[in-house]
Every structure is written in C-alpha cells, then in structure tokens.
C-alpha cells in the first residue's frame, strides 16, 4: 500500500485510545471510593482527617446528590463506589436497593428522631424545614402561622420554592402522609395559583429574598447561617410555623454502604468516623446543621434540638424515602 496519511492517522488514533484506556484504571483495591453528594468545602476537611487517623486512602467523587443517585442507579451491581454520602433522605430512600444492610445496632448510635428503621443508611446530620423572609419587607406580625396560609391572597407572588430540591420533595411526601394526597394536591395547586416562584435550590431562593424578587422562601434551616456569618446586616431572617405544623419537618443527610462494595469493612470505619464526636462537632460548626449523636453541642445559632422536636410534626422518616407518589403528584400539577 502506498503511503496514506489516513492510515497513519487512524493508527495513531488507535494507539492513543489504547494508551488512554490503560490509564486511570490504577485505583488500588483497598482505596475507599466515596461518592459525595455533599459539597467539597464541607467534606474534604473531614476526609483528610479520616485519612490521617486511620491510614485508609480515599478517592472522592463530588457531584450533586441527585446526579450521583442517577449514576449509582445506572451502575447498579457494577458500581465502583463503596459509600454514598447524600444530601437528603429522598435520594437515600430511592437508593435503598443498591445499599447493603448496616450492622443491626448502627442506627441506635443516632438520636431516635433521625433513625432509618430499614437500617439501609444512617443519618450524619439533621436539619429542619423553615420559612425564610425579608426583614425589610415583612412585619413579624404578618408571618403565616401555618404553611397552608401561604395560599392566602396576601402572599400572592411573594413566595418562592424549589420543586426539584430533595428537601422540598421530602416535605411534600410528609405532607401527603400527614394530611392525605388530596390536601397536598390542593395546597400545591393553591400555591401555583398564588404565583409561587420556582427556583433551583435553597441558596438561590435566599439570594432572591435578599434581592427583593420574593419576600418568603421555603428552605432548609442551615443555608441562612452561611450568609449571616459573613454579613450581620444581611436583610433576611428565618422562622418556624406554629407547633406541629408540617412546615417544621425535621430532615436528615446520611450515608449508606453500596452493596457492590468489596471494601465494606473500611466503609464501615468511615461511617464510624462520621458519627464520632469530632466529626459531628465539625459538621455542626461548619455546616450549621444538627448533630445526630447525643452529647455533641450544636452550633450556637441553632435552636435547641429539644425545642425543634417540640414543634416538629410526627412523621415516620422512612416513609419519606417513598418518593414515587410525590413525583407523580408534582408532575400532575405541572411542577416537574
């Protein structure tokens, strides 16, 4: 055959692919592979500390909780992940089929309110649903007593929510369980009719309140602290609804061991570490979340857990993992 650059190029291409395929497959078998749906700023220091204490090497894959969940579902039994650390119980519940059962006593290490009865995952931190509002445009007297009051005409166009957010979806599931599907649907439709504004997540909603786009936002409790810690003048505050209201729901972030893992022993050590007093203290101080183990002091700006428990609705945490009905409902009313 005569000299043909096409062949040469194809040959080089094939060689390049072959070389590249060989790279990157070098992860040692005993390295712990963690999929983290939680941000690097919070996770990286904890992992560095874990490595220093145990001598176990880790590889961390960062992404948003829901994308990680999609990836884990696609990987199934071939997943290289040993652990999945998720931002919300909805994702943990959806992934229960790919998780291994934890040791029988694992969930007894955490406070009762945070336990997973199926014992497929364990909570690593707690948070509550709250109402965030503008201190510039809202008089405390005009705060709603119940979350269902937000469908009232005086809140028209002033409230934001994030229908794709795991925390919000967990709240809707709890709403359905407590008040029934019809009531949940009526509330969602009432909110839509009242021109509730859709945002991507909790942080963008708080930005929107500060910027004057909306006056109220339905979010998790620990986002506002990150703003007010840097800027005491930040014109946003947060509040609860009246005692027992479904809007005061308690939620968790948690971690589970992937069934396909061949490194379950070290994975268990990582969970033990996350539940240790030092790690719990760090998560609370750094992330403005509630510790899940007894005897750890929560961040000073947080309401006491006892007070929160006194006003939070009684909902079976495990039921919140059952997302299907909620997603169907959100689709039916046109939010997804």
């Amino acid at each position, binding site marked *: 055959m*005569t*000299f*043909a*650059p*096409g*062949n040469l*190029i*194809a040959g080089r*291409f094939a060689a*390049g*692919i072959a070389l*590249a*395929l*060989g790279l*990157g*497959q070098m*992860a040692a078998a005993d390295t712990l*592979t963690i999929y983290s749906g*939680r*941000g*690097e*700023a919070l996770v990286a220091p904890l992992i560095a500390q874990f490595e220093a204490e145990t001598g176990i090497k880790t*590889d961390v*894959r*960062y*992404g948003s909780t*829901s*994308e990680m*969940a*999609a*990836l884990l*579902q*696609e*990987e*199934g039994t*071939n997943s*290289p992940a040993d652990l999945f650390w998720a931002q919300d119980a909805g994702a943990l519940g959806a992934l229960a089929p790919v998780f291994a059962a934890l040791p029988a006593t694992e969930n007894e290490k955490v406070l009762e309110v945070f336990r997973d009865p199926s014992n497929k995952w364990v909570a690593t931190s707690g948070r509550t649903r709250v109402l965030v509002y503008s201190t510039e445009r809202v008089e405390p007297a005009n705060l709603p007593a119940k979350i269902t009051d937000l469908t009232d005409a005086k809140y028209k166009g002033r409230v934001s929510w994030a*229908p*794709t*957010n795991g925390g919000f979806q967990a709240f809707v599931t709890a709403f359905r369980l407590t008040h029934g599907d019809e009531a949940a649907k009526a509330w969602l439709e009432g909110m839509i009719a009242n021109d509730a504004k859709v*945002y*991507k*997540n909790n*942080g*963008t909603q708080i*930005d*929107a309140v*500060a*910027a*004057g*786009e909306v006056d109220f936002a339905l979010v998790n409790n620990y*986002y506002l602290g*990150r703003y007010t810690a*840097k800027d005491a003048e930040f014109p946003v505050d947060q509040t609860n609804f009246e005692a027992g209201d479904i809007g005061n729901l308690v939620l968790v972030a948690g971690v589970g061991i992937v069934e396909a893992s061949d490194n379950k022993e070290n994975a268990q050590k990582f969970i033990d570490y996350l539940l240790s007093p030092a790690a719990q203290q760090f998560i609370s101080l750094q992330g403005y979340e509630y510790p899940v183990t007894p005897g750890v002091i929560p961040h000073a700006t947080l309401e006491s857990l006892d007070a929160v428990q006194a006003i939070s609705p009684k909902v079976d945490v495990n039921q919140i993992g059952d*997302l299907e009905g909620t*997603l169907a409902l*959100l*689709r039916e009313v*046109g939010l*997804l």
Partner: protein
Amino acid sequence: MTGIATSGRAGRRPRPQLALLLAAGLVGVGTCLPALYLVIRAFGAEPAQLAEIVFRARNLMLLGNTLALVALVLAIGTLIALPMAWLVTRSDLRARGLVTFLMALPLAVPGYVMAYALLGLSGYYGFAREWFGVSLPPLHGLWGAALSLSLYTFPYIFLNLRAAFLGMDPGLEESAASLGRGRAEVMRHVVLPQLKPALISAWLVVGLYVIGDFGAIALMRYEVFSYAIYTQYAGAFDRTYAAWLSLMLLGVAALALFAQARLTRSRRFARVGTGVQRRVRPVRLGYWAVAAWGWILLVSLAALGLPLAVLGHWMRRGIGEIDWAMLAQAAVNSGIAGAVVAVLTVALALPVVLLTLRWPGRFASLTDRLAWMGYATPPLAFGLAMVFFTLAVIPFAYQSHGVLIFAWVMTFLALALGPLRLALMQIGMRPEEAARALGAGPGAAFARVTAPQLKGPMVAAGLLVFIAVVKELPLNWMLAPTGWRSLSTTVFGRTVEGMMTEAAPYALAIIVFSAFFVGLILKYEGVDRKESGRG
C-alpha cells in the same frame, strides 16, 4: 461498497481508503451509542405510563420554549457578529486585530459563569446595588437565558462570518458594481448569499449547543427541554421520562440538521478563475467609526467585562484561601486532557471531511450528520449511555480516562469539521491533481501538497476543541476517574452548595487558560488566510 464508489465521480476516482471508512465507522458507532441507550431506557416503561409521558401537554410547552430560545439566541448573536465580522474584514477600522481578538475571546467564558455574571448585575450583593445603589430587576426567563447564551456563543458566528468574508472573491462584487449595482444591492444580491452557508453552519453550531445547554438555563429559570431532562434525572430519579425527552430533543436536532443540509446543498462559491485573489478595498467609515467603537465597547463590556468583574468580586472575598498546588494540578489535568482530545478529534475529523468532500454520497453525508448528532446529544444522556455501555461491554475501562476521552471526541468532533471543511474547499483539488499528473500517488499527493496547507486550520480546529473540553462539565463530571480533578469539575464541586468564593479562582483559571488559546486560534487562522491568498 459499490454504492460508495459509484456515487462519487464514477470511474475517475478510486474508492476511499480503508482508513477513511474505519474512521467513519467509528464516528457512526460512537455517536449512535447514546441514541441506542436512550431507546433501551425509553421502552423500559409500562405502555400506559408511556402514553402519558409522550403525550403530555407540557412537552409542547417545552418545545415552544426551546424554539423561542434558539431563535432569540441566534438573532442576538447574529446582530452582534455580523456587523463585527464586516468591520474587521471590510472597513478601515483601526486595530482590527484587537477587535477580532476581543470578539473571539468570549469563547473562553464558561456558560455558568456568564449566567452568574448577568445575575450578579442585580441581586443583594450585585454590582448595581453595591456600586450605584440601585436595584435592577433581575434578568430571568427567556431574555435572561437568551442574553447569557448569546454573549458567549456569538464568537462562533463571528469567526464563521469573518472566514466567509475573507474567503470571498472580491471579483464578484466588483463585477456587480461595474454592471451598475449600488452598494446596498451588491450587499443584498452578492455578499449576503455568499455569507449564507457560513451563517447557517454557525447557526447550527450555536443552535444545537443551545438546545443541549443546561447550566445557563437552570440559573435563568427558563423551562426548556434540556432543563426538563435534567429535572427528571436529578429531581425525580426518573430515567424513562428523561430518555423520552432526550429522544424528542434528538428529533429536533435531526430536523435542524436536515434543514441545514437542504439549505446549503449544492452551493459553490469557490473561486473559478486563475491568478491571485485580491483584497477588497476597505470601506471608509468616517464618523461611523464612533458608532462602531461604541458597539464594540458595549459588546466587550457585556461579554468580557461583566464575567471578569463578577469573578473578581468573588475572588476579593476569599483570595487568602487559594490552594495553589491544587489549582495548578487541576490546570495541568485540564490542559493534558484538552490537548489529547483536540489531537484525536482533529485526526478523526480529517478523514470524515475528506470523505464528505471527495466521495460525496449517502454514506459520507450520513457520517457527517451523525457527527453532528453526537454534538447535539444532551450531555447527561451521553454520559449515562457511556456508563451503561462501558459497564456492559468493557467494565475494566469504567471511569478510565479512555472512556472520557472517547466521549469528548464524539461530542466535539462536529466543532472540528467546519474549519477543516472550509479550508479543504478553498484549497480545492487542483494542486493535488497537478501533483498526481506529475506522477505522485494519491496518498503522497495529499501528504505533500494539501496537508502542509492544512496545518493552520487543523491547529485552529484543535484549539476550538481544546477550549470546549476545558469548559465542559457534565461528561467530565460523570465519566472522569474518581479523584481526578479538572478545572471545571472543581468549579462545579464548589458551586454545588453555593460556595462561589471558593469556586472563583478555578473559573478565572478556565477563562485565562482558554483566552490564551483563543489568541492562538486567530494566529493560525491568519496563517491559513495568507497562504490561501497566495495559493
């Protein structure tokens, strides 16, 4: 096989080299994998659920929104790019080189940074409030999304139009003028028709990008197909509905590709005469230069000033906390990955372009269209398809660099086709035919006569791909080896919980890094122009 040989210039030309066919086959397989995967996922549903999914009224709304967004982005992008391309090629504007650089530079800005920049105008910590004490209404919805997308995609239109202006034979315009046509008439009847193929192919690059983009759209809260697809995966853990939406999106892309092929078919604007192509005498701007500079300043401020200012704003709040070693490592990783993908993509694009130009026919045009489908596939669907097939067929390669590189090559191949195609068309077959007449074999004639002239455009095409890879996020995130850190995934890992200050140095590094290579693109494009001018 005979179909391929006879559909070319039967009898006169040999059939394509095996290597060309292999390359085309690779493109075909690589770009069909996502569609195959989507079909598998799409039919995993119950029939009743399926009907409900496919015939939702919401799908129509999403389609309408998607089309409106594409139309608006193309309109804004063309309004910016067309005057700029004319100014830098046909007018006596000063500092044309600088203007060209400024207008190509927004390529370096990642979409999510542009969207944050526009949002950063308004807002509590926004510029308008912090610097001027006024609260601007936030840019949201259709206009916000369209503006942020057009501000970093218009350079594709600009570069294409500029190349078309430069490649135009002034003889045609002069003939029209000598036949008594006024300047406006020459513009309408001679110049614009010649710009049409370049404009349409640029619209294709931008339009297909827009329908697949997610980052900017999510921030601007505008519901289009890609947003809905993401929502189904991310918010609902629903791969079936997401697969259906992705297939619908691919249908839209296929229609656009079909339309493009119809619109640009059988058009030839290559020089037919002999002799040296002359430059057009530049149009004197006079006082219009002031308006031109005003427009240039406005566009530069919006497309470059704004994102840089926003990043500077974030940096100022956290400059002490930069981990330089980590930043350097991420930059090196991004650079190496980008370079490898760029080289492989150009190496694969060249045979595809040669095939479409020299052995035109069904097989060649199918290959070309498939390369574009790869570009149009929603990245999330492409990523999950690669996860699915890698684990099913070559599990040992899962989360290896190889698979990530393969996915990138298949995604960005289309970007390299345009510049190479244009260059090969302008070089034409004659020099090579002369070499053949002097006794050189087909391979040798190509290697000695055409290939040296292709060097510039190949580098330019490679750099375009390089920049796209450095900015790329979804595939990178989904397929990269665990623990391997690039600039864009680091930005993502830090913005996921709203840590803008921590993300800023990496976003800035992407821009600085890419800006350098934008400069190189122009350099190599310029070399090519001079050479073809002499040719």
